[in-house]
């Protein structure tokens, strides 16, 4: 954290605050107003996208805790989401638990499963860990599709919509509030996590694990804790999908899902909460945007419209490559550039680069 040019904090509270500048608070206020007003103005199509973005944000923040903040690569995101979704669904269907309880238990179960597959991180890092989590993805996927007695195998699992104060959250408009509150809570928790001892230990492990262990951070313990915390929110995202779609199928949680979430945090910016939101929004909106373009071309250029899935896939890959080559720090860096520019406008004086 650097001190902004022209800002002088006189109390600990203002120095340690999550939002330290008046402009930051105004921006947050405007964002909150947008969040509240959005569902009243949006068409059902946009509401659906909004819900998807909220859920993806939770999953992306979860993954970012592990990959962006702690530096442990995971390709098992899809499988961990499956654990969350299936546990939540099954706890409601088979054990008859209320949805709130089953979501929470599902998060804990995913957390446990995530920590289990995090054990190899004791000995492995970087690419080896990536491959180990890839194996976790394949194994969990196989268990989900073959443990027919419990998961129903490849058949879909139908989950009832959650009910709050006698109100069924079965429309996009009603579910939106639940999704946004959960996403907000996730963001707030994570923002605070990285102001705490635990969060700083995560970052220390990422930046230089040997140095971290020298200054007294129990590296393995914090790696496992990172897997557990991350999987908790990943499981939450999975459970939200279960209750939002009301149907759970394993196709939603394949390796492709893991890759999509990794793309979100790469494009948005590793190790930032804002980046998780930006990335979730961009990667969710990109295919939607392309297919709406394609619908426009249906009559004039049917050949192009027929290639739509391929164009979406290619665009997905190209976006990842372009960001990695030209802006490895992602959208959150771009946003910071814009902010920095206006911060001291009209002067060209820039503040330090260390701030995340």
């Amino acid at each position, binding site marked *: 954290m650097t001190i902004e040019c022209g800002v002088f904090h006189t109390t600990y509270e203002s120095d340690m605050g999550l939002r330290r500048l008046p402009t930051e608070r105004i921006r947050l206020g405007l964002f909150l107003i947008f969040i509240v007003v959005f569902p009243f103005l949006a068409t059902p199509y946009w509401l659906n996208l909004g819900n998807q973005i909220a859920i993806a944000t939770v999953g992306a923040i979860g993954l970012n805790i592990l*990959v962006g903040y702690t530096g442990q*690569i995971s390709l098992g995101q899809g499988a961990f989401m499956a654990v969350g979704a299936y546990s939540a669904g099954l706890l409601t269907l088979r054990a008859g638990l209320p949805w709130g309880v089953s979501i929470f238990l599902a998060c804990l179960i995913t957390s446990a499963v995530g920590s289990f597959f995090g054990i*190899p991180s004791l*000995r*492995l*890092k*970087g*690419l*080896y860990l*990536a*491959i*180990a989590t*890839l*194996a*976790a993805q*394949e*194994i969990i996927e*196989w268990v989900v*599709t*073959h443990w027919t007695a419990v998961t129903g195998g490849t058949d879909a699992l139908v989950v009832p919509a959650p009910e709050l104060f006698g109100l069924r959250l079965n429309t996009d408009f009603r579910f939106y509030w639940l999704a946004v509150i959960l996403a907000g809570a996730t963001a707030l928790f994570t923002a605070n996590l990285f102001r705490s001892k635990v969060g700083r230990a995560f970052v220390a492990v990422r930046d230089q*694990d*040997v140095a971290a*262990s020298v200054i007294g951070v129990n*590296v*393995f313990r914090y790696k496992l804790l990172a897997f557990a915390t991350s999987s908790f929110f990943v499981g939450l995202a999975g459970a939200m999908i279960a209750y939002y779609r009301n149907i759970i199928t394993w196709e939603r949680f394949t*390796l492709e899902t893991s*890759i999509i979430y*990794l*793309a979100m945090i*790469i494009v948005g910016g*590793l190790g930032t909460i804002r980046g998780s939101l930006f990335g979730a929004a961009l990667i969710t909106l990109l295919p939607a945007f392309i297919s709406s373009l394609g619908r426009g071309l249906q009559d004039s250029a049917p050949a192009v419209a027929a*290639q739509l*899935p*391929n*164009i*979406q*896939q*290619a665009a*997905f*890959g*190209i*976006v*990842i*490559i372009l960001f*990695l*080559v030209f802006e*490895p720090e992602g959208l959150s860096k771009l946003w910071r550039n814009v902010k920095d520019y206006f911060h001291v406008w009209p002067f060209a004086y820039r503040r330090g680069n260390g701030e995340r």
Partner: protein
Amino acid sequence: MDAFLQLTVAGLSTGMIYALVAVGFVVIYKASDVINFAQGDLLLFGTYLIFFNIVQLGLPWTVGVVITVIIAAGIGLLIERTVLRPLIGEPVISMIMVTIGLSSVLRALTNALWGPQPRAFPPFLPGGEVSIGTATVAADRLVAIPLALGLLALLALFFRYARDGIAMRAIADDQLAALSMGISIPRVFAVAWGLSAVTAAVGGMMLGNIVGVSPSIAAVGLRVFPVVILGGLDSIGGAIVGGAIIGLLEVYTGGYIGHGLNLIVPYIVLILVLMVRPYGLFGKEVIERV
């Protein structure tokens, strides 16, 4: 016993193709520390290229193979120059993601050009069946084994005697020392990618010959991970042994146990190897404790 022999031939032929693809993977990893998740899509692209050359253009298969190899090498070089070179020195996660992005683009390109439906492949390996004792095994699978082994031997010779091969080993050993001896790192990276794309394409040709051409064969790209980890990430001999073991294991569990267990057995082996012996059977033992 007959079933056992058939399964063994099937397992070994699959395993040798795995080994071929795995070597392409190892070459890139050894030279530049990049994990190439696009290997399966390079293979897919190579398979469709040869399909295009032989079936759609009607070229004789010898010419078709040569053209495919040249184009594959060109694609490898192009990828290295445009995508990988700007990323030299970036963290592992960036390298992994950029190859995942590449795989997405390549797959979209393949689908756009040739569509998703499976195609019949013009066999250029001998067809029919061969009887060994009382068992009959598919001839193309039987031929694929020595063919893949021969190609792997050629690659081993390349690393042993060719100038670029030696340079590649030097860089894998110690990048800084190699650099100070006047070895051009970008050139070696380019050769590695070209070579890797070619082995993927050749593996694709053989696989396409055996199982037919369809987008699903790109999955081989993920199945080589257990192979390379088991064999050791930086060893060609390891890739051969690992390929054989994983191929046989897959086929035996598929044949004797079933339940689709053959799909995950390699990954279970992978986890066990990572827990017990992360550098694999023949990999260089680098001790790094945290």
